């Protein structure tokens, strides 16, 4: 499910799409789709993982690329929103985050 960058789209336009997604998801999750919240957040994270395609400064960001790979692996499984699969995924993601936090020396 790797998405190709659309060459005609600017970074600004791409960011606007992510903002739209977050705003509309917030409203939908509040009104009728509260159980979709975790998957929507992951979807937003997936969209953010493509920011290096638009922002030069992020081109070498390994962490974003790792996030993208993790999410694509999740999406490739059928019924990925089912609790056990999704729980395993969030655990894996948390572990990656912790490694990155240590790597970036937030914890001295």
């Amino acid at each position: 499910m790797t998405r190709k960058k659309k060459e005609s789209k600017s970074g600004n336009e791409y960011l606007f799409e992510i903002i739209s997604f977050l705003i509309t998801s917030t409203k939908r999750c509040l009104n009728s789709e509260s159980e979709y919240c975790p998957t929507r957040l992951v979807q937003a994270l997936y969209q953010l993982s493509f920011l290096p395609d638009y922002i030069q400064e992020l081109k070498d960001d390994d962490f974003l690329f790792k996030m993208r790979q993790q999410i694509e692996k999740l999406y490739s499984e059928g019924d990925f929103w089912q609790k056990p699969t999704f729980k395993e995924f969030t655990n894996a993601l948390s572990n990656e985050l912790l490694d990155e936090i240590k790597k970036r020396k937030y914890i001295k």
Partner: protein
Amino acid sequence: MNSKLLFQVIKNRRSIRKYGPKKVKIEKIEKLIEAARWAPSAGNSQPWKFAIIANKKTINALKMITPGWLGVDDPPIIIVVCLDTKRATPYSHIDVGAAMQNILLYAHSSGLGCCTIASFEIDSTINLLGLPEDIKPVLFITVGYPDQEPINPSRLSLSELIVKRLE
């Protein structure tokens, strides 16, 4: 009546998220609405209305307010299935489902592919499309010529579905 053929249409229909560049003629879309028109409805209330969106900019704008737009490439057409609140009954959600299924099956039988999207921002959709006050959008159906052949998804078995038989 060829029930075998109809069953093949029912069984082989898939949600299509990738579309080819071939333009869909408006007559084909109108035929889909014609199919929807003959769906059953509580008390023949026919509570449905439809907006046909073929304008690329409007489709892009709708995409921005649709969190449920997952993995769907640029469709040439969106049918916005709406509820006419003046004609609605407590069962209209079932009626709209029946109309939707007529559209999906007739589309598949005529070489088109569709994907249904239910998670979109309703108030923003009404505003963007300039819908009248008593018309409430309930579903998007993306339509185009398929550029993919999705694999068969799993289905529960008959024995899992039939919870009671009384003969």
